[in-house]
């Protein structure tokens, strides 16, 4: 689907630009876009370096494991195919809590780190696993308790009650997240094979951390229907 959207954007842009006589603008926009892609990535370097350093300390000190244990009943339901004591769980937890408190620049590095941990459980390194899709779904709908940027903007333009949108935002966020979880469940169930048929372990290239038996067992369970 990403392939199609990408192709659609580019082809339509050139066609429309040709009709509108904006070919020069589109050429310029293509290079501006490339430049901003690089700028954003470079902006991420400092944040990534800092938070990944911090999180390594947290991991070595066992903070992440504690955090994962604290909320694991809820998270485990959402990620049935990740072993409960896997480091990915700790990173998923920190990613979700950073989102919750609106710490955007901490949420991204932790989310990426969680993805890297999930990648270690992935038999096919180029295809997303169901757990990755669930984590992505939770992040695209981003549950935020207080949208601080917007409150600041509203304050800036002299709102009588800048924070009055907190309630409506929270409600809309819950609906969006609920929709994401439901859609994710639906696709997950549809794409997982019937129990006991597929799950032969594909020999993995460099599995330093191969999916333990517990992982496949819980995968089988989730494949059998009855998920949350």
């Amino acid at each position, binding site marked *: 689907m990403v392939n199609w959207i*990408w192709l659609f954007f*580019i082809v*339509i842009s050139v066609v*429309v*630009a040709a009709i509108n006589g*904006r070919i020069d603008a589109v050429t310029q926009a293509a290079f501006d*876009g*490339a430049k901003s*892609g690089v700028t954003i*990535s*470079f902006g991420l*370097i400092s944040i990534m*370096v*800092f938070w*990944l*350093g*911090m999180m*390594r*300390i947290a991991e*070595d*000190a066992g*903070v992440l494991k504690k955090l994962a244990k604290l909320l694991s009943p809820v998270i485990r339901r959402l990620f049935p195919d990740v072993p409960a004591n896997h480091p990915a769980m700790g990173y998923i937890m920190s990613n979700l809590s950073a989102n919750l408190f609106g*710490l955007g620049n901490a949420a991204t590095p932790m989310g*990426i780190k969680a993805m*890297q941990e999930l990648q270690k459980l992935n038999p096919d*390194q180029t*295809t*997303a696993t169901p757990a*990755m*899709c669930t*984590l*992505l*779904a939770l*992040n*695209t*709908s*981003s549950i*935020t308790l*207080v949208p*601080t*940027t*917007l*409150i600041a903007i*509203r304050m800036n*333009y002299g709102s009588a009650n*800048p924070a*009055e*949108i*907190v*309630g*409506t*935002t929270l*409600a*809309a*966020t819950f609906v*969006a997240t609920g*929709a*994401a979880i439901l*859609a994710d469940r639906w*696709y997950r169930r549809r794409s997982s094979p019937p129990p006991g048929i597929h799950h032969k372990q594909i020999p993995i290239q460099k599995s330093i951390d191969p999916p333990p038996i517990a992982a496949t067992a819980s995968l089988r369970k989730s494949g059998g229907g009855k998920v949350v």
Partner: protein
Amino acid sequence: MFDLFTRLSAWLIPAIIVFIPLYAAFRKVPVYETFVEGAKDGFGTAINIIPSLVGMMVAISMFRASGAMDLMLGAVRPLFDWLSIPTEVLPLGILRPLTGAGSLAFTADLIATHGPDSMIGRIASTIQGSTDTTLYVLTVYFGAIGIRKTKYALKVGLFSDLVGFLAAILICLYIFK
């Protein structure tokens, strides 16, 4: 209440930054060395994202500059008129999943033009606050680990954006009428 929360979130990051190393030192972890060791991964990870992010930003930037985005909006506008939803917020529904900076700028513009306490201002704020930039999140997260086949992830993200967009409008129309 809001005051309390802003103060709380201002203290949250410093609290985390001091708590983690302190606790780790207590558990006899060599904090500085561990920090440097973990931080090493940050550079490579950020660099890994560049190809996917450049690809995506080029497409979106072309789409906006060509006028194709305006055409798309024109096509959906009658439906919004018919539902008596303020059409001014419509571009936000399309911008929001595509570009975070673009939709934030658009929201700020709507708030500036119509006032933060107008219905349009409130709806725009709610839409902007309630979902994230799906395409960006997908590009960055999957780009960082080299996932090329994204399966149903994008569909789920866009579906949730659509639901969030409609929910934001309906909730605002109901609460602030």
